[in-house]
């Protein structure tokens, strides 16, 4: 198993903030909007450096999405930021009509996604957003795994022509992908070549999957490990060739089983190359308050549960 080094825990939202600041300095067309969460979403450095290009929208997310669409029509590249729950669920119809159907170049910066938001509990822990967003025609959905990848994804989102839903999180998580990497939207990363089983993970669960693969390697199970930061468009070539090679696929995501990465992969493989699958995801329930690590364990999303899913599917 290839070795990955955690260079120190960092939150993915700060990776977004770093990417946005970088864009602000090099691209005068980049503007930002926020719904009263500038510090939480890490847009404060951009707001301070470029006050004329930052629009505080207050607690009025529907209007923020409309304003972002208008700025995009006028030729700007707006990043509209708030918590994922308010960036996806609360404004679904606005995103549908003025962003996706209108083909406006809006980037939705969705922070505090998933159960690892922690103590605030279920009202803020959206586990449905990948499903909601990937159903929309014209929408790109990216869920990067660490600080460095989130920074790279932010830069890639600005270069992409069209709507992007960029999903990231609150807690500090291991930072292990290369600094100053270039992220190619729609191209999955092969983290480890293996032969017994494919594990496809996204977001915070990529590190859990690495840990699981290390444990499994010591037990003689070889994992073909894929970090799939872009859920839509899905990298079909990488997914299918891995499934052909191993014949078994486990998907891991901090999201409901319904609508998420697992279903996207299952839909693809059902058409192209059906293989047995297991899903490490939340099964039809809401989250609750707790520490991120505690919640990952309690909701069946940590490395131990990925190990268990692999053992179940491989019969080990």
């Amino acid at each position: 198993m290839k070795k990955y080094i955690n260079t120190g825990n960092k939150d993915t939202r700060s990776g977004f903030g770093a990417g946005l600041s970088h864009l602000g300095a090099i691209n005068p067309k980049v503007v930002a909007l926020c719904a009263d969460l500038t510090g939480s979403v890490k847009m404060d450095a951009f707001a301070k450096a470029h006050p004329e290009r930052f629009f505080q929208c207050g607690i009025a997310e529907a209007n923020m999405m409309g304003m972002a669409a208008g700025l995009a029509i006028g030729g700007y590249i707006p990043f509209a930021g708030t918590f994922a729950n308010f960036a996806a669920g609360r404004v679904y119809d606005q995103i549908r009509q003025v962003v996706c159907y209108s083909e406006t170049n809006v980037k939705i910066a969705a922070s505090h996604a998933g159960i690892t938001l922690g103590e605030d509990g279920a009202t803020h822990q959206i586990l449905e957003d990948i499903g909601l967003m990937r159903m929309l025609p014209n929408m790109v959905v990216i869920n990067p795994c660490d600080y460095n990848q989130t920074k790279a994804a932010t830069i890639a989102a600005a270069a992409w022509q069209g709507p992007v839903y960029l999903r990231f999180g609150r807690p500090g998580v291991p930072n292990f992908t290369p600094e100053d990497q270039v992220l190619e939207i729609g191209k999955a990363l092969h983290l480890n070549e293996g032969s017994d089983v494919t594990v496809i993970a996204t977001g915070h669960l990529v590190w859990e999957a690495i840990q699981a693969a290390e444990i499994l390697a010591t037990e003689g199970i070889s994992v073909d490990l894929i970090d799939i930061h872009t859920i839509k468009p899905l990298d079909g070539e990488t997914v299918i060739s891995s499934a052909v090679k191993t014949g078994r696929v486990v998907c891991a995501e901090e999201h409901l089983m319904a609508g998420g990465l697992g279903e996207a992969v299952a839909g693809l493989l059902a058409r192209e190359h059906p293989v047995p699958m297991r899903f490490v995801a939340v099964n039809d329930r809401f989250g609750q308050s707790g520490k991120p690590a505690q919640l990952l364990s309690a909701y069946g999303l940590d490395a131990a549960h990925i190990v268990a899913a692999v053992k179940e599917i491989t019969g080990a």
Partner: protein
Amino acid sequence: MNDIHTYQKIASQVRRDILRMVTGAGSGHPGGSMSSADILTALYFKELNVAPESWNRAGTGHDMFFLSIGHVSPLFYSVLARRGFFPVSELGTFRVYGSRLQGHPSIEAGLPGVHQASGSLGQGLSVAIGAALSKRLAGDKSRVFVLIGDGESQEGQIWEAAAAAVHHKVDNLIAMTDWNHQQIDGTTEEVQSLGDLTLKWNAFGWECIVANGHDFNSIFEAFGRADSLLGGGRPVMILFETEMGHGVDFMAGTCEWHGKSPSKEQCERGLAQLEETLGDY
């Protein structure tokens, strides 16, 4: 002021187009289209600084118009066609499979003159604010117009946008309300009363003008006053008092024709009341 009769004649043809399009399609929204017809005629044939040949979706260098009440698409399409944005003959494809004239305005369909899809209500004012801010950032002195409905003003997002425009001092924006007092289920008073819209917009910090939306003198006077207020640090709202279904006796002043197509006979009855001035499509 130009010859008012010229605009009345254009509006008469536009109302004929609306009736014929909705009747031809067997569906659509004639009531609100009729109530906004004089406003959009005045806007597109005099006030709006835009030429079909130089129109671009980004609005660079020209005034932009956003239609928030997407269901009055028959009116919007007629005015765009009569103003030369696309062939008048295309009006006959309204709501037909494969047409650029979708039931509600679409970007995907690629119709010139449309900046933004609309249909789901409450969203156009926010988009217009964003567009106005983009003009400010770019140093483009042209203006942004948006038409909303009174029924639509029951949507919460309208009031989010109302506050945002004032907060960001969006003073290159002229919003207009078609205040026809009707919506699908009845009068706005019966369905969910709006109260005094003048007081509301004033209270939000907007410059507010009330005008008669069927009197071209009043409409042009309102546009002139609105324009003079731009650059003063506040957005401008023109509340146009109108009548739903205006111009056709059996459609006027009732919500019955909000979203219903006339029969062939009813269409003929309506057309008999509207002079054909520019030639039917």
